[in-house]
């Protein structure tokens, strides 16, 4: 697509936020604590995601060290173990993947891709970020106060009611979800309003880039799912602190009600985490194959169908919770249905590469890795969707292997693909290509070594959330822990790459990827100026 626009001033955004409107240069507090700029807020979110990833990652390194040998003594307290695994799950989901993909890349690139000067509600955007930051403090309090919130990220009562999880830790963990939830909900409203109302003239919905579509569908999922989580969390807080018995059998309540409410949110949540990654992969595959995406309309419909069907499959997380046989049949079939649009996307990516002229730069490696590993994770998902098999596999390491394949390899590879693709546009400095590839391969080997053996542990019957296990499980646990050491070391390589990026003296052109990059962010300088598209471009 082509457009006409007035020049945006090619000023590095980190040096000087001055522009033609005569504003004085904002101070640090105004720029970073009171931002109304989608790029700066995107940067804040990416920074939050980095901190969240390091924290959640450190927790997982501790967990894998404990599991490296049976009868290990790294963590000697069951309460500490439960608090660590709970915080690991919550932090990775709400303070790493979501802020990176939605708050970070979404904020940075959706306005630019649709030719809008900013988000529809810039102040609301800022509020979303600071709610999330406060939530991070709360979830850390949930980890550290007393014996810690220890019911797992799924927070099922009765274990986390007032009797069995007394003290403030669980309340802080629950409030952290309220804060993260409000953050996401307001952000979703912002994205929907922006995408529906602020596209440049000529950019119809079906000319919109696929990353924007992915964020739009994600925003609708958030809009509808977060309030249900908020309801469940509020009911639990009330049971804990105000004597209600929503989930207390003695008072007429039912613990399984929480599971329904939680997973009604929880299942769309996993699509919330993966859809933006789908969007990024589409952009990267297209750019580095130098071809437009194959079957754009099919891709759009696939994402919409995944989002829609994702709302009606929640009880596949509850196959052993006492739902009826008929319910098990329904939820199995509905869950399997999602495999079809997902397959459409995978085959479309391959068809995009087919006939292309593929360059295997670092972002493309991450995208290709995503496609292959997500297919493996999806395959184990198909296995688990069978309620009869899930009776054997629920809550064991096969499940852990499945969701880490789609998250630590799916969503995380999507995050890295976005980082390597867009860091030059965001910072004005490029990453070193050699070290980018080293990071990719070392992380690839690390995560596969960590999680592939966990399929075997699950089949052999090892339950999840265990700090110690029968000696027979020691072999594969050792291999898995070695893998986590490798991925931990690979993250050090990533830190080095960050240093190289921010100390690089290289100047980058507007479009440093070439003909394959056709979306609007490549028509503005690198780094993108503080304000872009203040004059509305016209799309032909």
């Amino acid at each position, binding site marked *: 697509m082509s457009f006409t626009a007035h020049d945006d001033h090619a000023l590095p955004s980190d040096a000087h936020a001055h522009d033609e409107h005569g504003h004085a240069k904002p101070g640090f507090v105004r720029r970073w604590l009171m931002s109304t700029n989608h790029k700066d807020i995107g940067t804040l979110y990416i920074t939050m995601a980095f901190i969240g990833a390091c924290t959640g990652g450190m927790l997982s390194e501790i967990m894998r060290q404990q599991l490296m040998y*049976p009868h290990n003594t790294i963590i000697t*307290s*069951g*309460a500490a173990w*439960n608090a660590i695994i709970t915080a690991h799950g919550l932090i990775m989901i709400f303070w790493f993947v979501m802020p990176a993909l939605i708050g970070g890349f979404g904020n940075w690139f959706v306005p630019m891709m649709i030719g809008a000067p900013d988000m529809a509600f810039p102040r609301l955007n800022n509020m979303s970020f600071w709610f999330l930051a406060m939530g991070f403090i709360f979830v850390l309090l949930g980890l550290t106060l007393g*014996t810690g919130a*220890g*019911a797992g990220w799924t927070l*099922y009562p*009765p*274990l986390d009611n007032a009797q*069995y999880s007394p003290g403030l830790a669980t309340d802080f963990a629950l409030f952290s979800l309220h804060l993260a939830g409000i953050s996401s909900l307001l952000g979703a409203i912002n994205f929907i309003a922006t995408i529906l109302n602020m596209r440049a003239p000529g950019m119809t919905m079906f000319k919109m880039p696929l990353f924007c579509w992915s964020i739009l569908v994600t925003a609708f999922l958030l809009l509808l799912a977060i309030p249900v989580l908020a309801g469940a969390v509020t009911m639990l807080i009330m049971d804990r602190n105000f004597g209600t018995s929503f989930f207390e*059998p*003695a008072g007429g309540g*039912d*613990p399984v009600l929480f599971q329904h409410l939680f997973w009604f949110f929880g299942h769309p949540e996993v699509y919330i985490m993966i859809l933006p990654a789908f969007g990024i992969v589409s952009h990267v595959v297209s750019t580095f*194959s*130098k*071809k437009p995406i*194959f079957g754009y309309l099919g891709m759009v419909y696939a994402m919409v169908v995944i989002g829609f069907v994702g709302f009606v499959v929640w009880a596949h997380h509850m196959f052993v*919770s006492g739902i009826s*046989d008929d319910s*098990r*049949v329904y939820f*199995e079939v509905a869950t*399997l249905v999602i495999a*079809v649009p997902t397959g*459409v996307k995978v*085959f479309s990516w*391959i*068809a995009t*590469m*087919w*006939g*292309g*002229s*593929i*360059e295997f730069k670092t972002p493309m490696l991450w995208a290709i890795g995503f496609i*292959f590993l997500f*297919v493996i994770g999806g*395959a184990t998902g198909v*296995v688990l969707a069978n*309620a*009869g*098999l899930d009776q*054997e596999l*629920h*809550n*064991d390491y096969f499940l852990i292997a499945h969701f880490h394949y789609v998250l630590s390899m799916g969503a995380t590879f999507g995050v890295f693909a976005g980082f390597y693709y867009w860091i030059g546009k965001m910072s004005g400095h490029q990453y070193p290509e050699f070290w980018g590839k080293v990071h990719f391969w070392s992380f690839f080997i690390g995560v596969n070594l960590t999680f592939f053996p966990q399929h*075997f542990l699950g*089949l*052999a*019957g090892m*339950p*999840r*959330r*265990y700090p*110690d296990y029968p*000696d*027979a499980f020691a072999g594969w646990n050792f291999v898995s822990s070695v893998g986590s050491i490798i991925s931990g070391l690979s993250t050090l390589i990533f830190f080095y790459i960050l240093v190289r990026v921010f100390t690089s003296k290289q100047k980058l052109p507007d479009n440093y990827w070439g003909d394959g990059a056709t979306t609007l962010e490549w028509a503005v300088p690198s780094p993108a100026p503080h304000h872009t598209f203040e004059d509305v471009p016209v799309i032909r």
Partner: protein
Amino acid sequence: MKRAFLTVFGAVIMLAAIVHAGYAQTSADPTAAANGYVNAPRPWQMWFPAAGSPMQAQIDWLMKYVLWIMTGVVVFVAILMAYVFIRFNAKANPVPSHLTHNTLIEFVWLFIPTVLLVIIIIPSLNLIWYEGDTSNPYMTVTVTGHQWYWEYNYQSVPGLDYTSYMIPDDKLLPGDIRRLSVDHPMVLPVGEKIKFDITSGDVLHGFYLPSLGVQKYAIPGTIQTSWTLINKPGIYFGQCNQICGINHDAMPIEIKAVPLADYLAWTKVAQSNYSENNVSPVPVTSPAEQKLADAAVSK
């Protein structure tokens, strides 16, 4: 007369001695028949445990069926991708095409996955109904999860209701398996359909028997049912599979399956022993942890 009396008396004594000896023989260990076969996890195990029940055998079969299909899909995708990388990399194909549509292929990749899903679903539904059919059991055991032990109540044996604690690491005897062996296993007859009524006395627990294909949450205020039928005598293990607090990993399940006659003999011994609270549970927590648990609960 005296001789006759002494003979009869001696015979009665001998008879009593024989019967008593015979009784003592079986009551010494009515579950001995289970000791010949232990179904426990093996080092480097890569598949399900050997199926101890028809249900697990069916799960095993369906798993192979689905995995073969999904492995085929993954390999197919891998081959496509490898071909694409070799044939269409920038050196091999410097000029990209502009192909973005092909109605036939788009139809094919909608249709074939749908067919594969139907192929998977048909046998899978049968398994759901099979697992859910708890009708006509030979006997029922009420299984209650507690923090952090199991309680087994044999509904057809009045008074037989006892607790089962993991044997702590420092009290293991030769032949015990660390983290799996318990003080009082559940004893069940081989070859009979056994229904489990599963509930909890406090928080959620998971009653999980991988070698028998059984798994259900233990939910306070509800009774969930599951069933099994154990193929042959032996020792079978399970573990708690829903996070339940600080000793979630320390409440395993051990089942001793014995021939029906031995099981019936055991119920008589157990009835008299357990119902008089002759057996005291072996606590799993160290004194320090127990203090912590007590402090947490009493707050």
